[in-house]
């Protein structure tokens, strides 16, 4: 089985094969012969010679999580061909995305407004805290995607700005 894991923008290519009682994992030209005991769902005890790896693995909707040696790693699925599908965003444009799911409590701009770098565009409230969306560059508001009291989800774009 070939598997690719993406972590912090790096792709790790691994193969794993089961032969009788053992698994053979290959990564970076090294083969590890391991025996495995799944103690509870996702709780792994993996023996490599004298060494024992104890880890917990689980999967969410979009990612997998590994707990090992006191640290958590979040790994994303790799879509080899899908890589270039996303339009490369303008520098700073990401700053217009909502950093959190919450409620829009103030919209400071309307279509056609001119804005300067650092101007407050929109205020989002989540978990009783406020988050300000500011203009990442000078420009003209071309579209406002939310109005006050709207629910907004993490990653949704608040407004569109054309650079002047």
């Amino acid at each position, binding site marked *: *089985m*070939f*598997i*690719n*894991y993406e*972590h*912090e923008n*790096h792709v*790790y290519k*691994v*193969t*794993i094969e*089961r032969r009788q009682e053992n*698994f053979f*994992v290959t*990564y*970076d030209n090294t083969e*590890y012969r*391991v025996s*495995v005991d*799944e103690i509870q769902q*996702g709780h*792994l005890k*993996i023996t*490599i010679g004298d060494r024992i*790896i104890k*880890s*917990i693995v*689980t*999967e*969410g909707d979009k990612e997998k*999580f*590994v*707990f*090992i*040696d*006191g*640290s*958590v*790693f*979040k*790994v994303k699925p*790799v*879509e*080899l*061909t*899908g890589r270039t599908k996303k339009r490369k965003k303008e520098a700073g444009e990401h700053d217009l995305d909502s*950093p*959190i*799911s*919450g409620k829009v*409590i*103030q919209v400071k701009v309307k279509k056609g407004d001119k804005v300067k770098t650092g101007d407050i565009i929109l*205020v989002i*409230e*989540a*978990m*009783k*805290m406020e988050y*300000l969306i500011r203009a990442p560059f000078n420009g003209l508001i071309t579209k406002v995607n939310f109005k006050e009291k709207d629910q907004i989800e993490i990653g949704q774009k608040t407004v569109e700005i054309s650079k002047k």
Partner: protein
Amino acid sequence: MFKKVLIANRGEIAVRIIKACQELGIHTVAIYSDADLNAPHVLLADEAVNLGDPTPIESYLNIPKIIKIAQEKKADAIHPGYGFLAENPDFAETCNKAGIKFIGPSPEVISLMGDKIAAKKAMEAAGVPVIPGYHGTDQDNESLVKHGKKIGFPLLVKAAAGGGGKGMRIVKTESQLLESIESAKRESKSSFGNDTVFLEKYLEKPRHIEFQILADEYGNVIHLFERECSIQRRHQKIIEESPSPVMTPELREQMGRAAVTAAQKVGYTNAGTVEFMVDGFLNYYFMEMNTRLQVEHPITEMTTGVDLAKWQLRIASGEQLTLKQEDIFQRGHAMECRIYAEDPKNGFLPSVGTILKLEEPTGPNIRVDSGILADNHVSPYYDPMLSKLITYAENRTECINKMTWALSHYVILGVTSNITFLKEVFNNHEFEKGNTTTHFIDNYFKEWTITKKTLPVDALISLAVYDSLHSKKEEIVRYKEADPHSPWKHVGRWRVSGGE
């Protein structure tokens, strides 16, 4: 003692109070919104009543709804926990009028202490030192800016009704002043329904040190020593400890007496906390009094052996405080970490999601006050604190070692938490030395990011083994039949490659 208590809260504090009640033989009624259907306080309480709509104002802040439930369930008292309605004098008043005992001080005291300006004036009058600032009634932006300039920079803008960092802004230069005042007012209005703010001098090398007090309804007041809560991010405490590494026996004696005096002067009853700022020269200033059980109360419980939640219930039910000041002593060292669903790499932004795996550290003198269970969903409606991790040891060094061990054995998968960040704080040399001012996080963790960037090979092996064990049989068969060197396969429900 009460027969039945309604707990007007959620999360770890509701669980904490339910346990205290149950041990005292008190029947408990939990309330819960639709976002908390399977929350631990719901499963633990003897009865649980649904509040519907998760919006705070429609659920945990809805006074008429809560009073009605308490009456229907024939609760003789309500414990408000902290946050939500804990420091709302109208709620305390409404409880009392409905013949239900509010577990906390009188509405008048809550009201006085809730108004930070009036509180400071009262303390000044009682001879307790306060920080220079403007606590006046000129609340138009222009006047506030004028007063601010007079105090000088840096200064703090704080919501009069605030707490927990909400409605608080630190202003470093004159140019930020107006915007900060506006934003603090807005946040205060939406959180507390009141937009009065005040301004005060920002101290050098300040530490946040507070004293726990207990007062019964017969005039007996004791303090249970200090907690240092200087380690804060976004003006919210994340690590607390007791005793404070900077405290001297003389200062402790002095501040403890000031705290008791403060409580006595205002006719305080039940558990409360007097917060001070202590500067680099060990000058101390009254900050505010919190008229409730604090988040960080467990470290006082660990060092003094006193159960504060149970004493709240006893005092409210009219029992006398049998603990004498001379019987209370500190022993060893305790620390608390607040475990938040937040991303420290990304400005401590709250995170949401489902708790897929949960394993809490256990061991001698490790206490976890938790508000989550496996499979719970962490919603964006409420404060993102998941739990509190508390450790006790014979001394500060051992306590740090135990906390580091416990953090390394705390498994929360599915939601980003601040555990890795906390571990690095405990690993910081200045922290180890006790150099813990309120600027600590800004000074040492401003641009913090997780240092370990690469995925360790043991994690890769674990993932591969997991996927191999959990891929559906058909998929493995399909895979085996195909060219073993082609990566165009499906693994589990993940697409490992496209192209077919």
